[in-house]
Structures are given as structure tokens and as C-alpha cells.
């Protein structure tokens, strides 16, 4: 417990005492992650096979049809 408390304090103080450059970089990281996951992933990059088919069996059949030749 003592170690966990020390680790927590280490991070807490590190972030608290961070200079303006560090704060700016964290802001950029957070904005970037928001754009990636809340906008791009959600609205522009669906997992096509996950969305179009409900089971792995259907996904397999679809890909076999796509890649094999009659």
C-alpha cells in the first residue's frame, strides 16, 4: 500500500509541477486522441466486417466469396 501511495504521489507531483511546455504537449495529445477516437473512429472508420455481419461464420463466408473463384 505504501508503494502504491508513493507511486501515486510521484505521478501527482510530476503532473502538478509540469512546466508550460509539458502542459501544452499534454493538451495536444488529448486533442489528438479525442479527434482520433471520438471523431475519426466513430464516424469515418467503422470495422466493415464487424458492422455488416453478426457472426464469424458469416464473415468467413463473405471473405471466401470475395477471394475465391467460381
Amino acid at each position, binding site marked *: 500500500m505504501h508503494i502504491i501511495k508513493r507511486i501515486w504521489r510521484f505521478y501527482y507531483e510530476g503532473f502538478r509541477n509540469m512546466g508550460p511546455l509539458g502542459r501544452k504537449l499534454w493538451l495536444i495529445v488529448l486533442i489528438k486522441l479525442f479527434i482520433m477516437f471520438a471523431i475519426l473512429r466513430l464516424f469515418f472508420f467503422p*470495422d466493415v466486417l464487424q458492422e455488416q455481419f453478426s457472426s464469424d461464420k458469416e464473415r468467413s463466408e463473405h471473405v471466401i466469396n470475395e477471394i475465391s*473463384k467460381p
Partner: protein
Amino acid sequence: MEEALVDWSRAQFALTAMYHWLFVPLTLGLSFIMAIMETIYVRTGNLKWKKTTQFWMTLFGINFAIGVATGIILEFEFGTNWSNYSWFVGDIFGAPLAIEGIMAFFLESAFLAVMFFGWEKVSKKFHLTATWLVALGSNLSALWILVANGWMQNPVGMHFNPNTARNEMGDLWDVLFNTTAVDKFLHTVSSGYVIGSLFVIGISSWYLLKSRHISFARRSMMVGAVFGIISSLFIVITGDSSGHHVAKTQRMKLAAMEGLYEGQEGADLVAIGVLNPDKTVNNDEEAFHFRISIPRLLALLAERDMDAFVPGMKDLVHGNKQYNIPSTHEKMQQGDKALKALNQYNQAKKAGKDSLAAAHIETFQNNYPLMGYGYFEQPEETVPPVGLTFYSFHFMVILGFYFVLLFLLVIWSNMNDTIRDKRWLLRAALYTIPLGYLASMLGWVVSEVGRQPWTIQDLLPVKVSTSHLSAANVELTFWLFAAIFTILLIAEISIMVRQIKIGPK
């Protein structure tokens, strides 16, 4: 698959991968340079080395923060734009990428905090260990994605399950120690070390040109140049090994890299040359307008034998009976058999005709290693863009030799105490920073354009790998990414420049 869709999907992947690669190599190289500087500080106790380490660590932090997670977009694209391919590769990608996420990323992230927050809070040795572990973690992150790429160039250690249309990993060690993956990892990370070295030398040169922070700049420059020259020698060794393995597993790529249309015994290596753009595998025009070649060197590098035969693109397309090289047409017939047998197997299985299914699956398995050739209409489709591959390869090599010369001159001038007088050398070092990135990008172009038309060598071409999407949608996201990444790049450069102008504390 619609051609525009395939082209936009490729363009989008290339754009995101190349932008991502603008951030990664500096992380790989600078992390080790910082670790070396901090090791000197811990061993000598000289505070100047501590300040030096801290300055480069700040620039490392900027690059890391702006670049972190840019690679995740590539994973989004796998699921959206390349769904057939993603399904087909199965757990071959899943396992290495999961290991990357769990092991390398957490190692990197946990010790990154110690590295930045821990200067006055942990012991010198613990801090140094954290810095080395960040460097190691960054490089391990690169390992797993490059193992996955190596598998695409030379698929080994798996078997294809015709019931699920997925490849299943047979042996993780075969995948991990695949010669292509090992070469690719070592060659790629060492290119990052060279970029890190060029960056340190270039920025240090700027300080010397401005007559600021002189002893700091010369100290940094020395570490950068020595690290750079060692890394460059390592690149030569891994590049040689890469070429040797490409000659075994991707012969068409090697022929394109060298503009070799007609196979040769004791083949020459083209040092510099101008290709004839009208030359194809189906005509007898001269391949070059001009070239300077080194006799027999290609045979030696590719086959470890100065008299060996190195096949050209014509031999690989039309076949060469003398050297037992099958034509692409023969391979296409085999591929066609595999694709039809896969379909017939599934039909027979659905109809409950087990013995018929067993016969089809045997045909499929016998022809599976060349399955991908069954998708082509013309044998010439298997020839990659020769000009782009050839020039990218040769410019990369020329730049590599130039970097070696630069590192040697910087070390020599720094040791002789004449570096500040050689303003031309300082300017050259400063302007060489972007050339390091250019050389690394050209390396990726050789690797990825040179293996066209394949996504997975011999098994799956690019045109079958994409999802059925609207080309206009892919084009839209292409421009969206171009905008986002350009903003990130501008942010990185402006924050970095501001910090460099402030200089070490």
C-alpha cells in the same frame, strides 16, 4: 475491385504510414543518444552532461507527444479499408500487435514518467535505467509491427484454414525469426538511429553557426556523430543481408531495384543510371539511357557468388528453362486452380459431399503457395513500378554514403578543433536533417512499392485486399488525414524550433 478505390486506399495508407514515420525514427534514435549521454553523466558525475541529456530529452518529449498514437490510424484503416486482407491475415497480426500493446507500450509509458519527472526524485542509477528502458521499449514497439510487415513480405510460420479463410499461426518463433522480419527490423531501426544522429549534429551545428552554447554543441555533436557512424556501418551490414534475402524471396523486387530486365550470370550492380522509360518486359529496347555499373557485384551481393545467375524481370515473367524459372503464366494457372478449388471445397462442404470436399482441399493445398497469381489477368501485372523502385533505392544508397562521409568529417573536425571554422560543414550538417528523413522514406518506398502488386507475397494482391467502399469516401478521409497530420507536423516543428531557440538551460 474498382481501380480508383484500390488507388485511393493505397494512397491513404501510404500517406498515414509516411506521416507516422516522420515521428517514429527520431524517437528510436534520440532515445539511445539520450541514454548514452546520461550514462556519461552517471559515470563522470559531470553536470554538463546532465544538462546536455535534459535538453535532448525535452526535444525527444516534443517529438514523442506529437507522434504518439499516430500509428493507431493505420489500425483503423485495416478494419475499414482493408477488411478482406485483415480477415485473411488472421491472428498473424493479432499476436504481434497485442504483444506490442502489452509489453512494449507499457514499458515505454511507465518509464517515460520516471525519465521526465524523476530527475530529483529517484536515484541517478534508477533514472538511467528508466532512460535505457524507454529506449528499449521504443525499439520493441517497432519490432512487432515490423515482424508483421516482414511476414507480409515473406509469409512463413502459418497455415491457411479454408473453412474460415484465415491464416493461423503455426509457430510464433518462425514468424518472429523470419529472416525478412529480422532484416527489416534491424535495418529500419538503425535508419532511425542515423536520423537521430543527423538531428543532433544538425541542431548542434546551428548553435555553432550562431556561436551559442559552444561546448554543449560540440559535446552533443561528438556523441551524435560516433553513434551515427556506428549505426551507418550497421545499416550497411543489415542492408546487405536484406538484399541477399530479397534475392531469395522477392526476386521481382530485386530485379526492379536494379532495373534488371534480362537475367545475367555474374550480374553487375548499377551504381548510378538513367532508366529508359519505354523499356518493358515485352520489348527489346535498352533498359538504360546511361549507367555506371560495378561488374559482378549484384551476383555477389544477391547470391554470394560472383558468377551466379541473377534473374531479370523478363526471366520472371516469361520464364527461363535454362535456370529452371517458371513463367508467371504457369504460376497463374496454379493460382487459378487454388482459387477454384477453394470455392469448390466450400460448395461441396455445404452440400455435405465430404469425399468431394477432401479432393478439392487437396488440390487447394497443393497450389496454395501460389494462390495469389490466380487473380491476375496478365503476367505483366506482377511487375512493380520499376522507375520508382529503382530511383528510390539508388537515392537511398547514395544518401547513406553521404551520411557516412558527413559523420566522419564531423568527428575528424571536432577532434581537430576545426569544426567552428568549417562553416560549410556546419551548414551541410544542418541542411542534412531532412535528407535523413528522405532516405528513410525512400527505403520504405523500395520495400513497399517494390513488392507490388502484393499485399502478402504470392498469396494476396492489393486489388483483392480492399473493402467494398465508395472511392469518394476514401478520398475524403485521405484529405482529412492530410490536414490533421500536416497540422501535427507544423505544431511539432514550431514547438521544436521555439525550444531549440531557447537552448539548453
